[in-house]
């Protein structure tokens, strides 16, 4: 834990649902400012890995460290209570496949809810910051709208802004564009690219191969719960080490060649 640079350290995490081993001995280190794209076929455990990182799912084995601090298990070696877990979770932002905005709150309230209620930061400050974030994702004029009145792309940009409003050390994305109509995917990817440029530390589960190829600093390929390959996107896409990865890339070859679907 000497490296101050390492934001996330997933060490040998395993998780099973009943007899189904969904993650087996998965490790992943993410340095500050890195954008790691997690790729893999459906059911390979990508979502489960993300959910283990912030303990929405409790791993069966292995450790997770955020900035050197153990997630989920306290100093005494026992499972954290809700209060400690919630404190750690506020430092990990999450963006959901189906947006998961809170339907009863306006866009601005969605951004302010957790910083004010959970982090207990001053309302005025949170509000200014939230407005700035909405401007950044291009949704200033929607701040008083309810989520139900937004398009999918707008919802997801709110989802990203909501996660940023927590000033997280790490952002997790679970297929942030796969519930969107194809013509709306771009507007979300633009925002994510910008964050990558700014040096936000991110772990992104995605099927957008073109995005992974040119925005990721590293890719992790999961297959049947195992971390099969990890490395630079250039190497992974042009010269994968394993047969499974080669097949996977071939399936999505059109994506890489043609930019986006």
């Amino acid at each position, binding site marked *: 834990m000497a490296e101050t640079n390492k934001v996330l350290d997933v060490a040998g995490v395993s998780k099973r649902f009943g007899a189904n081993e969904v993650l087996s001995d998965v490790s992943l280190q993410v340095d500050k400012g890195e954008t790691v794209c997690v790729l893999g076929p459906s059911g390979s455990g990508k979502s489960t890995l993300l959910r283990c990182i*912030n303990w*929405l799912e409790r791993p069966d084995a292995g450790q997770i460290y955020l900035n050197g601090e153990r997630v989920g298990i306290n100093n005494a070696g026992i499972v954290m209570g*809700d*209060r400690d*877990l*919630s*404190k750690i*979770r*506020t430092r*990990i932002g*999450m963006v*959901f496949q*189906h*947006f*998961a*905005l*809170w*339907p*009863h709150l306006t866009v601005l309230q969605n951004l302010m*809810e*957790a910083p004010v*209620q*959970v*982090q207990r930061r001053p309302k005025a400050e949170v509000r200014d910051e939230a407005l700035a974030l909405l401007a950044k994702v291009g949704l200033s004029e929607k701040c008083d709208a*309810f*989520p*139900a*009145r937004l398009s999918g792309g707008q919802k997801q940009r709110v989802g990203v802004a*909501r996660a940023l409003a*927590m000033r997280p050390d790490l952002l997790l994305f679970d297929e942030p564009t796969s519930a969107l109509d194809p013509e709306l995917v771009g507007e979300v990817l633009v925002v994510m690219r910008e964050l990558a440029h700014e040096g936000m530390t991110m772990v992104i589960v995605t099927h957008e191969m073109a995005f992974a190829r040119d925005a990721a600093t590293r890719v992790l390929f999961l297959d049947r719960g195992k971390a099969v390959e990890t490395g630079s996107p250039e190497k992974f896409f042009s010269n994968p080490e394993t047969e499974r990865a080669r097949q996977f890339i071939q399936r999505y070859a059109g994506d890489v060649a043609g930019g986006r679907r």
Partner: protein
Amino acid sequence: MIHDFGIVWSERSLLLSGLANTAILSALSAIAALLLGFLVTPALMSKRPAIFGLARLFVDGMRCVPFLLFAYIIYYGLPSLGLRLDNWSSGLAALIIYNTAYMAEILRGAWAVQPREPIEAGIAFGFSELKLFRRIILPPLLLSAGPVIGNQMIQIVKDSAFLTIIALPELTHAASSIQSRHYIPFAAFITAVFLYWGLCLVIEAGISSIGRVAEARR
């Protein structure tokens, strides 16, 4: 006929206190039943067969028992088991217990159709326990269940009229007293009917304003 309504007018304080009692009785039992419903609902969804079975039995049982008989049991029946309640306590207890079953079922239905992801987002953003429930789970739940809860409140108002048979001084009881005192049945009871109608229109107005709030968020 005009004369009859004049008599009703002269007895207005009796009628208004009946109306007030009906409103208080209904409001108290609606609130209490809703709160208790929140306790029974998790039992209705429990994976433990004993807990689930007991909760189901209670809810389905209450839904098959006529309210009047249930009130009779509480008022006349419980004393033979050594539990004697006055008419207010037994009326209130009957309304609350009976409607807890209905509220629990309403909440279960609303809960079952709530999307899971926003709640999960709440957890991921650090909400926990009471705060998660109060700020993330409860508001959309109440918005979606609001209209049905409102309809149940109308049902409670109407059920409360049955309590006239245990001499609880609610609206119908007040109208009965006026009728027996002055022998003006039409004026006395039709006035009561209009007051019930007014009360229900108020509740309906509440329902539709909840409906509008929910519509904007759907």
